[in-house]
């Protein structure tokens, strides 16, 4: 605990800002039903009420739902879905990456070439193609994005574990007759963790922005679920009347990714041991 505080004290202001932002978002996401004044898709008033009128602090949206409530629930849905997707991407990419290095040979070659082809197509284009075929629903969205994103995790996991597989203690474990799975989880994984943790933050940002882009295009999270990017899409006409309300959910997305990026930046500096020389 004491070490933790010491670490926090040594953090640059940007990282502390990032940590605070993340804590705030997690809090809002967890306690959304308690914090929100109305139900998630409850219609409570006339459409497009301006801010502050009739007791709606942020006004109402295009269907007369309370903006503040939608924003609070949006934290839960948008972040939750992005988080699950990132975890799945890490599970797929991490497992295949570690398996590829541990087994080597044709398994490694085959997986490597498959990833090459997947990465040759821009993610957004590929995702749009698949979503045209499968139609959009949340489970499909999560699986598609996780698989597409796992290619990056695969590359990193493979690159990192490549340096560990050749070390003596792995060889020793092999000679002891340990199984592949044991070697992966007990020897290789713990030693390749720091870069993977940093990558988790970056991938989360990417997935989060990616899902937001899809939702903004009308192909991601669908109503009645509250989602920030869809809110921007629904409210975007207000911009031309100089009303900045649609920027609130967009700003909510931006603030979180900025926060996570700041923390990752700090973490990378700490773990990589890179010090900018004077």
């Amino acid at each position, binding site marked *: 605990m004491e070490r933790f505080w010491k670490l926090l004290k040594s953090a640059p202001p940007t990282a502390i800002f990032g940590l605070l932002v993340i804590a705030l978002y997690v809090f809002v996401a967890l306690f959304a039903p308690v914090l929100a004044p109305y139900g998630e898709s409850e219609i409570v008033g006339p459409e497009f009420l301006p801010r502050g009128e009739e007791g709606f602090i942020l006004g109402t949206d295009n269907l007369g739902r309370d903006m503040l409530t939608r924003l609070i629930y949006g934290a839960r849905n948008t972040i939750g879905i992005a988080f699950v997707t990132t975890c799945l991407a890490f599970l797929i990419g991490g497992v295949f990456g570690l398996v590829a290095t541990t087994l080597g040979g044709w398994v490694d070659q085959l997986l490597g070439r498959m990833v090459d082809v997947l990465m040759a197509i821009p993610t957004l284009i590929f995702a749009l193609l*698949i979503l045209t075929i499968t139609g959009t629903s949340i489970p499909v969205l999560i699986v598609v994005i996780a698989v597409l994103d796992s290619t990056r995790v695969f590359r990193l996991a493979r690159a990192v574990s490549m340096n560990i597989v050749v070390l003596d203690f792995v060889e020793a474990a092999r000679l002891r007759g340990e199984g592949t799975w044991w070697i992966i989880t007990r020897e290789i994984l713990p030693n390749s963790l720091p870069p993977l943790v940093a990558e988790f933050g970056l991938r989360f940002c990417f997935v989060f922005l990616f899902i937001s882009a899809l939702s903004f295009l009308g*192909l991601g999270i669908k109503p009645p679920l509250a989602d920030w990017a869809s809110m*921007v899409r629904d409210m975007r006409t207000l911009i031309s009347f100089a009303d900045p309300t649609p*920027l609130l959910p967009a700003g909510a997305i931006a603030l979180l990714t900025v926060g996570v990026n700041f923390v990752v*930046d700090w973490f990378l500096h700490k773990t990589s041991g890179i010090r*900018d020389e004077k």
Partner: protein
Amino acid sequence: MAKILKMVAQRLALGFLTLFVVSLIIFLGVELLPGDLAEAILGQAATPETVAAFRREVGLDLPPHTRYLDWLGGMLQGDFGRSLANQREISGLIGVRFANTLFLAATAAVIAVPLAVSLGVLAALYRNTLFDRAINVVTLTAISFPEFFVGYILILFLAVQANIFPSISNVSADLGFWEHVYRVMLPALTLTLVVVAHMMRMTRAAIINLLASPYIEMAMLKGISRSRIIIHHALPNALAPIINVIVINLAYLVVGVVVVEVVFAYPGLGQYFVDSVIKRDFPVVQACCLIFAATYILLNLTADVLSILSNPRLMHPK
């Protein structure tokens, strides 16, 4: 020299192989549709006769490999088939839009590349000063912003409040060049903000990386000024990675236009693509996918070839 030609040839062959595999994936993706295209389009209510007639009309009764070759052959000759939504020739609808998209991406690149490289050099020059830190924070923030957020902020301030640029980039072929540039300014600026950060950070990193090398130390010991060292000694050697990053970002630009085009209602390929995805207009989606993927792959290929050509160390591999 023969070696380098071989490397480039290998890289090109690999690139075209990738293109081929990608076209196969795009084609097979639609094949995997539950039932087939005819059923998906005509819906549950269609009688078996209508479905069969439709299959014959579109050529769905032929075996897949024949259709793939037909499709690919058509694509290569600029014949993209017909849109399901309005039965019009896709090539006629796509040509102008693709030109618009390239125009937007090119405008953004013309602004972004010089800006990113000079900011990167400046940041390397004034490393660890307030200027460098500020730029670091600003670029990190810019990378984190969703494109539509940047777009709408620009619309709010530059179009609605200050009224400098139009908020909707409505272009048509009869506009003059400068009028065209003026109308795409906001989307181009949005794209610029999104890509500059990455390019600038890589430029800075490439130069700083070189500053640790002995020949730079030698130059410093000779008492040459810092700016001269960076511009005359470090920059030429950092060009290879910088060119690579620039071309990769250009590839990103061509794809990144999709969201920005929707924000500004710009009549480019990206918006057409998204509309077709929503309508599930498969032939158009396939055509757009292929065009975007091909542009992306070809630009990345260019980046690879350029980095082989511009790196003397790659010319003499061990």
